[in-house]
């Protein structure tokens, strides 16, 4: 059921939006955003598309893995903010990379990367010797309401990717869902259908912050404990926790409840904000590129998000 990570990559838009920039747009302040979320700045797409960023992240991951696109057997993209409803982001990437394999998108909101790893694990159990590209890419700037200070300060854009190959490094993985259309949702538009009578809520992202906060802390703690138990490990065995970056306060609270030393919890939220599915993938790549991981390190990943979805896994680093 397993695989190993052969390479990682990530890409960010060039435009930096600081908290002070946001204070010019909505009634907020650097102090409020920093203390309530831990975010100081985020990247936002201007001229680049999210497909461009996904492509760059994928190319870097392929280079890092020493693979070429024609070796790929499958491309999975985790996204809720692709440029097209069709073709999928994965098919667009397949074209741009010059790959010939099947390709599809998956929607599990912020848990998308971990859902994609779980799906990939299924393909590896069917055929262990293959290469799968997993990309998580989000332009949250197209989903948030830039007039709503309660949400626009939290999110950012970016893409992360990983090339998976034959191996036994996925020690445990669990995904979950608890269907809910009130706590965290972003409706699709109706186009110009003349037959549709009911008007929908605006297509922006809507969120009950405190309810999501509670769900986040509880699910992070539960899912990490579950995958540790499944892999027959204790938290002392974990070299790093690579959690979804929604709010530093969520991370502090969960790390405290898990009784993990703070320095084991990797975070880049200060400069990236919440890039939804891309968070875990970008964080993994940034740690890989800075040489943080030693061969054999055990990594715990965990995420939660719209759906409501949850997911966690234990991965051995063997690069």
């Amino acid at each position, binding site marked *: 059921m397993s695989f190993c990570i052969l390479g990682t990559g990530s890409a960010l838009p060039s435009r930096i939006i600081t908290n002070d920039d946001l204070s010019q747009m909505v009634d907020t302040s650097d102090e409020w955003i920093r203390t*309530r979320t831990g975010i100081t700045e985020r990247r936002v797409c201007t001229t680049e598309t999210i497909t461009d960023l996904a492509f760059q992240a994928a190319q870097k991951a392929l280079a890092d893995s020493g693979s070429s696109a024609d070796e790929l057997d499958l491309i999975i993209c985790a996204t809720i903010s692709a440029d097209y409803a069709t073709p999928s982001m994965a098919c667009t990437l397949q074209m741009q990379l010059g790959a010939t394999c099947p390709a599809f998108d998956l929607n599990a909101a912020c848990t998308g990367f971990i859902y994609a790893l779980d799906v990939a694990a299924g393909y590896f159990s069917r055929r262990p010797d293959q290469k799968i590209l997993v990309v998580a890419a989000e332009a949250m700037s197209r989903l948030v309401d830039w007039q709503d200070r309660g949400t626009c300060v939290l999110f950012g854009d970016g893409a992360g990717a990983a090339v998976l190959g034959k191996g036994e490094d996925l020690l445990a993985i669990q995904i979950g869902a608890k269907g809910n259309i009130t706590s965290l949702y972003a409706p699709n538009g109706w186009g110009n259908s003349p037959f549709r009578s009911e008007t929908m809520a605006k297509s922006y992202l809507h969120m009950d912050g*405190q309810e999501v*906060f*509670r769900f986040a*802390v*509880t699910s992070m703690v539960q899912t990490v404990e579950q995958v540790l138990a499944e892999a027959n490990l204790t938290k002392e065995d974990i070299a790093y926790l690579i959690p979804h970056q929604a709010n530093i*306060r969520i991370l502090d*609270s969960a790390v*405290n409840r898990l009784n993990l030393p703070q320095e084991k919890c990797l975070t880049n939220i200060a400069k990236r904000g919440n890039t939804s599915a891309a968070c875990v993938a970008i964080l993994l790549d940034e740690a890989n590129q800075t040489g943080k991981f030693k061969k054999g390190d055990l990594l715990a990943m965990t995420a939660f998000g719209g759906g409501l979805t949850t997911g966690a896994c234990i991965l051995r680093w063997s690069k």
Partner: protein
Amino acid sequence: MSTFEKVVEILVEAKDLEAGNITETSTWDDLGLDSLDTVELVMSVEDAFGVSLEMDETMQTVGDVVKAIEALK
């Protein structure tokens, strides 16, 4: 341990506060706690006492939380 003592213990453990500085009349502001700290407090209280609590405008002080817990126990 009284309900108040237990709530103080939770606050000290989660928020690094001095037990001696917490009284029944302490407000969240007095203790330097913001709305997310109170959300966390409610979560810890629910775990510790096995009750289900709603944080609302009527809960302004440590004593208010203690009263709410006792009413539910």
